[in-house]
């Protein structure tokens, strides 16, 4: 189960955001970030005012820009308004400037940069594309478009960037972008070269060096060294240059080093208190660190300075909505569960159980005991969760981990079978450990790979469950070498590469575990504590070169998926035939096709899997034992769809295999715990097996779900309490049951038993 969210990717909350960001452009007040326009087309009048602005002499700069609002040149007026932070006016003036010279490229670029600063990347992109339609060779427009792609974490940036920079060798912004991309890709030497070149050009062209200093400082930060040389230089140039520290914080966030980011964001706010974006990011990061109350005043300040920032407004709303949540504090191990109040009695028991199990499991496997409470936040409203995770790059998620705090979606409000919340929790909890044992230095791919491995091997859905897409990608030579696998997460170059990278990372960890054993994998993980690269750790721990590692992994893949790789089209045809035959109730042919499909790719257990077709065909043919076997194989391979589990449970019950049925029906709770159906049946089975405490959990959840049949639920409570020895509670629930249904015969019998009545 991957924590990628189909629903979120479909953009459920976009309309709201769009509305807010429209307001942002229309009414934003003073934008405190300093825009640096390196373009030689910038007018001399503006450049005169830029100088005090870039040195942090704000009032002097404003006094200089203000008269330019009456300049004859529409573009100068627009840029002056932009520099003064009057974005509403600037927007109209840019519009007028573009209208005045419809074939001009530069006004569109300036307008686009304003949108980019306002966070409206789509609008910015549209303007940059328009500019390129007018002049496809305009270097600044091409760099601007690459910048948008970079900020949207699209993967096609690196490929063309080198050429773009080479063709526009004097464009400072090209080298700055190259430096930024290289830092993200871990190519730090390249980043230094690009940033140094940018710095050199700023000196030659008499432009502000602060952004080049920022990139050089960022490299030092990523190298875990003191960036003081560059931060001092930047502050010497502009004592109010908070954007540099905000950028350093952002780089730390991308490396999931939230504690370190906190330091930089705080400096950003200290240096430039009116840097509203910095204040917002500082607050968001405080929330990641679980310091909600500290975050609130900074968010309020950010809101007052920039009342139309989507992230700020949404996060403040989220803070208000936290009143609907309750914090349940567990001890030994220390865990804080933050759940919606309505979900405390329904989801809470299962979350607690899984949190405890996962912490015990990972403490043992990774040799690490959490030194602080772990907070688990679960949001029934995906939009709340999305706001909670704001600031993270990339696509929609189901769960996210910020060190000792993990946040995730609740199964409420999602279609049954859409996601397995138990696996998401397991996956995220594994991150807590892999991040912690490496002080957040674990590469993204390894952290994800180990989380996926834990899902497959120790989680609530054990079984290596993959999609054919990852094997197809392997066959098409699209899987990345281990040393570059982070790119698959951070800078995907083809559709679904992120999902495929999750699976590849999991398979690599599985391969490593099988090849060298799990202790060696843990040693490999811990090696990143010393800031090693993937290449170095592979060599040092596994004693093979990265190339050899990749070769062995490829052999592992070829061996594991030999049958599928021999003829992938045949598998697709078999699947189609199996479903067609099933629809036609041709049980024999459906069985034959689905069994062959299972044999070719046993690791595929997702929706409509061959296992499920096989089980249905067997059941249709009256072979219930074979249907059970098919579904058990499916489950063993990682199948978890609640409908399939319920079917397996029903078949086992019909076959009077109650103990096995109990275990299967209990597993449903980690996929679909909020459905009323099933808790009573499971409770009864647990009572049959004298598991009073477990039965009590089921009936408590059932009652909290407000079932129609309260008599039966209270009767179950009574039986469970009786089994646990709590006679008073047993009597209370029994009488409650009979108060609703006085002639409920099983409850009557229990009443006679409990009262010691000897009926004549």
């Amino acid at each position, binding site marked *: 189960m991957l924590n990628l969210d189909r629903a979120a990717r479909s953009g459920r909350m976009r309309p709201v955001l769009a509305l807010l960001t429209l307001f942002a452009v229309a009414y934003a007040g003073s934008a405190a970030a300093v825009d640096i326009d390196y373009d030689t087309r910038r007018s001399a009048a503006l450049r005169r005012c830029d100088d005090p602005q870039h040195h942090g002499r704000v009032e002097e700069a404003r006094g200089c820009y203000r008269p330019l609002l009456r300049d004859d040149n529409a573009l100068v007026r627009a840029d002056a308004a932009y520099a003064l932070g009057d974005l509403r006016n600037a927007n109209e003036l840019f519009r007028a400037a573009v209208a005045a010279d419809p074939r001009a490229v530069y006004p569109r670029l300036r307008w686009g940069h304003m949108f980019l600063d306002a966070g409206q990347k789509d609008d910015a992109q549209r303007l940059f594309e328009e500019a390129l339609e007018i002049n496809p060779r305009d270097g600044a427009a091409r760099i601007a478009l690459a910048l948008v792609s970079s900020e949207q974490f699209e993967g096609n940036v690196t490929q063309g960037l080198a050429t773009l920079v080479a063709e526009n060798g004097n464009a400072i912004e090209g080298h700055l972008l190259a430096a930024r991309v290289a830092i993200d890709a871990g190519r730090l030497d390249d980043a230094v070269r690009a940033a140094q070149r940018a710095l050199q050009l700023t000196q030659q062209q008499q432009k502000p060096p602060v952004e080049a200093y920022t990139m050089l400082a960022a490299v030092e930060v990523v190298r875990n060294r003191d960036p003081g040389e560059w931060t001092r230089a930047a502050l010497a140039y502009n004592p109010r240059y908070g954007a540099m520290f905000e950028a350093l914080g952002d780089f730390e966030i991308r490396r999931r080093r939230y504690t370190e980011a906190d330091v930089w964001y705080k400096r950003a706010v200290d240096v430039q208190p009116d840097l509203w974006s910095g204040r917002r990011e500082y607050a968001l990061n405080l929330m990641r660190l679980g310091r909600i109350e500290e975050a609130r005043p900074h968010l309020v300040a950010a809101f007052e300075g920039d009342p139309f920032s989507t992230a700020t407004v949404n996060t403040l709303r989220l803070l208000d909505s936290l009143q609907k949540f309750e914090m349940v504090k567990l001890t030994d191990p220390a865990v804080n569960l933050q759940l919606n109040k309505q979900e405390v009695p329904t989801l809470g028991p299962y979350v607690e159980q899984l949190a405890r199990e996962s912490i015990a499991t990972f403490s043992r496997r990774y040799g690490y005991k959490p030194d602080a409470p772990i907070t688990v936040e679960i949001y029934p409203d995906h939009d709340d969760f999305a706001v909670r995770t704001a600031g993270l790059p990339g696509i929609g998620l189901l769960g996210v981990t910020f060190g000792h705090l993990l946040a995730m979606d609740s199964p409420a409000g999602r279609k049954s079978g859409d996601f397995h919340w138990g696996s998401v929790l397991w996956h995220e909890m594994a991150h807590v450990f892999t991040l912690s044992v490496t002080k957040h230095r674990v590469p993204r791919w390894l952290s994800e790979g180990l989380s996926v491995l834990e899902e497959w091997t120790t989680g609530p859905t054990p079984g290596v469950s993959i999609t054919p897409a990852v094997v197809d990608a392997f066959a098409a030579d699209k899987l990345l070498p281990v040393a570059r696998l982070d790119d698959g997460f951070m800078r995907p170059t083809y559709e679904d590469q992120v999902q495929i990278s999750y699976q590849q990372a999991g398979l690599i960890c599985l391969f490593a575990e099988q090849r060298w054993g799990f202790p060696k994998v843990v040693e490999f993980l811990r090696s990143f504590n010393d800031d090693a690269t993937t290449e170095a750790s592979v060599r040092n721990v596994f004693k093979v070169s990265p190339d050899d590692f990749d070769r062995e992994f490829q052999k592992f893949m070829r061996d594991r998926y030999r049958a599928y790789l021999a003829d992938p089209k045949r598998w697709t045809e078999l699947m189609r035939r199996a479903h067609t035959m099933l629809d036609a109730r041709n049980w024999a042919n459906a069985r034959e096709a689905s069994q062959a499909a299972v044999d070719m790719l046993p690791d595929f257990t997702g929706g409509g899997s061959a296992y499920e077709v096989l089980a249905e065909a067997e059941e249709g043919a009256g072979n219930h034992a074979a249907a059970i076997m098919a579904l058990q194989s499916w489950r063993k391979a990682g199948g978890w769809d609640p409908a399939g589990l319920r079917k397996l449970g029903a078949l086992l019950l019909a076959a009077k295999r109650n103990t096995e049925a109990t275990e299967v029906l209990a597993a449903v709770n980690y996929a679909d715990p909020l459905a009323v159906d099933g808790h009573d049946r499971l409770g009864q089975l647990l009572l049959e097996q004298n598991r009073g405490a477990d039965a009590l959990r089921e009936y408590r959840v059932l009652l909290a779900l407000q079932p129609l*049949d309260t008599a039966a639920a209270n009767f179950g409570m009574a039986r469970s309490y009786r089994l646990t020895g709590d006679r008073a509670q047993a009597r209370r629930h029994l009488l409650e049951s*009979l108060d*609703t*249904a006085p*002639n409920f015969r099983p*409850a*009557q019998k229990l*009443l006679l038993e409990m009262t010691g009545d000897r009926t004549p």
Partner: protein
Amino acid sequence: MAAASLLEAPVIARSLRLSCLPLLCGLALVGTASAATQVLVIAGLGGEAQFDERFTKWSEQVAKASATATGDAARVQRLAGESARREDIQAALRAAAEKLREGDQFMLVLLGHGSFDGSEYRFNIAGPDITGSEMLALLDRMPAGVLQLVVNATSTSGAIAERWVKPNRVVITATRTGGERNAPRFGAFWAEALASDEADRDKDGAVTALEAFDFATRKVNDAYKSDAAVVTEHAKVTGSEPTRFVVARLGAAAMFANDAQLIALRTEQAGIERRLAQLQLQRKELQQDEYFNRIEPVLVELARLGVRVDTRLATLGVRAGESSDAKP
């Protein structure tokens, strides 16, 4: 508060709207047990194989369960597919009107697609559709004093609710208005309710129209929630006292309704239940412990009587478990 007598029970139940104290509902059933009940179940055209299959299956389930309520399968008529043409429906309703007498009950269950053009509801059947007005005219021809229950589980069925309801007629529709046009899921869960212990909330062995309605609406809502889909149907009850209608009986006891010993036990049970009902009316005024202390001995009496009922049923050949939950 004055003690409620057997005759007052329906009044109290009405004052509680759609929820009532279980025993009062039970007592109301005792009062109607001897009335003859006639059921007509009609499955309309599905238009697609999957719908045809569903409607036929649901109508079979409803008809089978209805026989437990009427006590005689001959009093249940099912029309489906080609045998559910306009003239067949008209004939069936006319025949029912001729057979039924004051005090009897008539239940009509419509499963399938409906349509509403803003003024007229139509039930989609083989041949020309039958209109709501036509069916209403036929229902109005039932003898005065025949209690009627209409369960219209079709799309747009809400359009007929207010038009069809009468003091002696309760109308249950799958949708709130004629504007809810999507094929409702209500029919499936209504059919399920008639054979469900879960629907029989008071465990008296009889599923009332209200219990079946509550079960079906809850399941409909749960199903939409499970699919994370927008709810496109909102069932409603129009008319008073849906608890007057037993739509299905569960367990084996219903088969021995004429056994003299069981009748005597039923009378005894009714007396205990009346005492319990008196106490239940005091629940809000008492501390929980005090309330439980008071009802416990009465419940023990009922439980003892339950053992005697089971003993009698055993002598009649009902195996242990079959009589579970059943009212003698």
